[in-house]
């Protein structure tokens, strides 16, 4: 597609439920990133996928968070047993491979997650 697509755009869930967030990157972008942005805060790195390499999960805040990516396409971020502190906007970005540091990231519009 023309841009990075994220769904849903908004999600309200009850504390303790599991949620799944989806990211559709730009075709041809092999690098994919998930960031979290709390209200009024900067972007917090969560996880990075590059092609078929093992993902960099160093930013995942707890074992309730996991993410998958099938090849170089769609990625899903799953949060189990959601807590109110998980409320934030979850942003996905994609970039060209290898030289991903050399190009800007293209971000989606994010999923706004509210845990009540």
């Amino acid at each position, binding site marked *: 597609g023309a841009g990075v697509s994220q769904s849903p755009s908004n999600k309200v869930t009850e504390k303790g439920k599991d949620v799944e967030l989806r990211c559709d990157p730009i075709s041809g972008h092999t690098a994919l990133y998930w960031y979290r942005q709390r209200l009024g805060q*900067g*972007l917090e790195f969560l996880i*990075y996928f590059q092609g078929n390499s093992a993902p960099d999960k160093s930013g995942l805040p707890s074992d309730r968070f996991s993410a998958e990516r099938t090849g170089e396409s769609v990625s899903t971020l799953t949060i189990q047993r959601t807590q109110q502190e998980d409320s934030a906007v979850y942003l996905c970005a994609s970039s060209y491979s290898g030289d991903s540091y050399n190009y800007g990231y293209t971000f989606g*519009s994010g999923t706004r997650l509210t845990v009540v």
Partner: protein
Amino acid sequence: SQKIEQNSEALNIQEGKTATLTCNYTNYSPAYLQWYRQDPGRGPVFLLLIRENEKEKRKERLKVTFDTTLKQSLFHITASQPADSATYLCALYTSGTYKYIFGTGTRLKVLA
């Protein structure tokens, strides 16, 4: 500890003036530095990239400087317009990490 600092207070300037935003960092040795623009309810949009061996980069009304001795980048918007009002984020890339770490951003408001 590692820190990226951007002025958390909003910057208000008059239309037509030059806006200057600051990004300071400590305990990083970034190979690359990027600036992004973020509008409310949207994801950040890439503006400019500058490498550690570059002092300055320009794109239309935008200029970025990178001083690795001062550990600082300055982002300038000349002839500012109300449409430039947004939050501006800097992001650092350190070799071997394969990801950018973002600052908290500075909100710019250009007054007509």
